[in-house]
């Protein structure tokens, strides 16, 4: 089975983020980057499916040159090869078009990606990708079961709904699934994996201007820290003194202890 995993590179969790001079995006200087967390779960699921059904796992990512590092890390975890679409665009529809163009020639049996990104957080690249590839999709997936085991033709998934409800959905392959965090335990790259990854192929696709991407229809005009409308009483400084003040407030003002 050929499985493609679309991954995104995002700033390292808990990085101190600053707005850029234009006020339209973050200042990316001096930032470190890593794989978007839900995409890491998508990759893990792909690797486990390969263990069960055989075949290969291809990771694909759109972004600037630095993205190749995150692809390499996915290869070190066990993906077989990578595709890097070298682009500066952040626009969801444009990125999905680029991914779709590259995946059309690969014709995978299954496309996995995380349910949303930690930066833009639109939560739709996978679903848009399905539309552009003409494939069925399902989202916020907690469990993937390929049937039959030796000759995959359909997939049965457990989809998360609100308030602790779930639903099973079945659809024919090829299909696109967006994966929820937490469905598997993530593996670490082994030393052997890191060594092997150096020899694995990363195909770089550079845009020559002829690519068939639509104009962006949603422009980030301004990125800014939300206005503080903090009504609460916030203490800082010495932890002991702050804790004492808080305990007093909880006892005499809120009367909850």
């Amino acid at each position, binding site marked *: 089975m050929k499985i493609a995993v679309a991954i995104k590179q995002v700033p390292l969790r808990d990085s101190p983020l600053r707005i850029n001079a234009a006020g339209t995006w973050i200042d990316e200087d001096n930032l470190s980057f890593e794989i978007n967390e839900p995409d890491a779960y998508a990759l893990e699921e792909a690797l486990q499916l390969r263990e069960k059904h055989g075949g290969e796992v291809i990771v694909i990512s759109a972004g600037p040159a630095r993205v190749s590092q995150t692809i390499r890390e996915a290869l070190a975890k066990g993906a077989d090869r990578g595709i890097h679409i070298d682009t500066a665009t952040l626009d969801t*529809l444009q990125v999905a078009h680029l991914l779709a163009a590259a995946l059309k020639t690969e014709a995978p049996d299954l496309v996995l990606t995380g349910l949303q990104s930690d930066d833009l957080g639109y939560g739709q690249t996978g679903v848009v990708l399905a539309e552009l590839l003409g494939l*069925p999709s399902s989202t916020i997936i907690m469990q993937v079961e390929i049937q039959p085991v030796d000759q995959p033709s359909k997939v049965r998934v457990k989809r998360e709904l609100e308030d*602790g409800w779930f639903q099973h959905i079945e659809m024919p392959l090829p299909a696109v699934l967006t994966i929820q965090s937490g469905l598997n335990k993530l593996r670490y790259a082994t030393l052997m994996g890191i060594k092997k990854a150096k020899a694995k192929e990363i195909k770089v696709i550079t845009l020559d201007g002829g690519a068939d991407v639509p104009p962006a229809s949603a422009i980030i*005009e*301004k990125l800014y820290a*939300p206005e503080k409308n903090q009504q609460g009483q916030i203490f800082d400084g010495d932890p002991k003194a702050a804790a004492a003040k808080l305990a007093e407030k909880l006892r005499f003002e*809120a009367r*909850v202890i």
Partner: protein
Amino acid sequence: MSVLAIVEQRMAGEVLAAAQEFATSLGVGVKAYSIDLPYTADGYTAAAEELIRKVNPTLVVFGHTYQTRDYAPKLAARFGRVLISDVIAARPPVFVRQMFQGKFNADVRLTGDGPHFVSIQAGAWKAEGSPPAETFSPSSTTSRQVAEPPFREAARAVDLTAADIIVSVGRGIREKENIPVVEALAQVLGAELAASRPICDAGWLPMDRQVGSSGQTVSPKLYVAVGISGAIQHLVGMKGAKTVVAINKDPDAPIFEVAHYGIVGDLFEVVPALVEEIKKAKT
């Protein structure tokens, strides 16, 4: 021209209120429909496409539900558009949404001809009156997805909704071995221990102790959020608490926006100190 509200049972009143606000600001009317079809992604995409071609709206509004997330991006792509998802405020054609997990807000401007597509965040608009939505029956109902009826996992071992006091722990706890730090606080307060999603994903606490959109929705008298940054998925599960206390090292963490009391500091210093203070107060 009009604003088209596509409603489901969940968030219907809020979606209608938002659609009305957008329509007023654009100087057009509102049309509201629910789709008369058992849900599948393919079925709803085709039905909504048919409905949009019939109504010809300039803007289509949804609630940002799990169902919308499953098909509306596909629908928008069919019209060459991006769904502006999880919107919290608007001055059409500019819509405000959170990015970087609530750390920043972004003003997103829609350009080009409609229809454009927007989904609104739960709780961002107040539902008004009863929703007068019409029913739309699509001409085709084919779908590649076959959906089974929704189900719940075996009964929850822990009912957090009944708890008066909840101490909830997030990523700030860093590793499983540190959970006893917050357990001590829960114990001295006589509280149930709960967690944000990443803690349950990692298996550090069982899934039935998760508070948030995919876990339990709680409204205790006291909710103490320890090392929880306050992503929207968590906030929707605990905003109803009478008193919210936040302990976090990041003064800009969104959790402080909903906190009545807070301490900015290292939880590994603050929580043990708080345990001592509460012990003192209780004797």
